[in-house]
């Protein structure tokens, strides 16, 4: 069966520091991968998605970036964190094959607090 992992689970970082959040998927090949952010009391905002290694689509211009160095690894980064980057970051995957369906499966999330 497929599983999705995110780490760290919780992170407290000072303003201006760098960020690296990691997401990995097991049990599937060539998945589509997604990064979402959920600010306190708000819905989900799609940040990035990827349909393959090295292929990144950005949904919202900001100081975050994403990379996909391996098929089942998706990384969210920042060179300098802002206070507004605080939130709950969720990674998700869906089958990449045609006919695999639109259902996305979510990881446990990373809680980021920027002080």
């Amino acid at each position, binding site marked *: 069966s497929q599983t999705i992992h995110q780490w760290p689970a919780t992170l407290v970082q000072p303003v201006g520091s760098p960020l690296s959040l990691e997401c990995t998927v097991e049990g599937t090949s060539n998945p589509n991968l997604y990064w979402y952010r959920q600010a306190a009391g708000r819905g*989900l905002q799609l940040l990035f*998605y990827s349909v393959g290694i090295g292929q990144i689509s950005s949904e919202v211009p900001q100081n975050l970036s994403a990379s996909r160095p391996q098929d089942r690894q998706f990384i969210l980064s920042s060179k300098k964190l802002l206070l507004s980057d605080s939130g*709950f970051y969720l990674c998700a995957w869906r089958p990449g094959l045609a006919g695999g369906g639109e259902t996305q499966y979510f990881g446990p999330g990373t809680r980021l607090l920027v002080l």
Partner: protein
Amino acid sequence: AQSVTQLDSHVSVSEGTPVLLRCNYSSSYSPSLFWYVQHPNKGLQLLLKYTSAATLVKGINGFEAEFKKSETSFHLTKPSAHMSDAAEYFCVVSAVGFQKLVFGTGTRLLVSP
């Protein structure tokens, strides 16, 4: 274009009473519709999905939803609420071939003893 509107930001029920969470959608294509649940500080869990098969969809934990094309609705129901149902619920729309999901703003379900 696709969008969803969750008509209630908060719903309060007593344990053992029915639950109704309302969702209306808009889609230029034959939609796929989903309900996800999120417990505090957790990821999202798929409750159920509609993908042009039966209009009444049964999900996990006793939840079900009915796709009504004429009303562009996909309301989530459960006959009897349990304390463990207290969570945030998201209605979501997509379409075949689309890479992205479009989320509603969420409905927080509160269950009192």
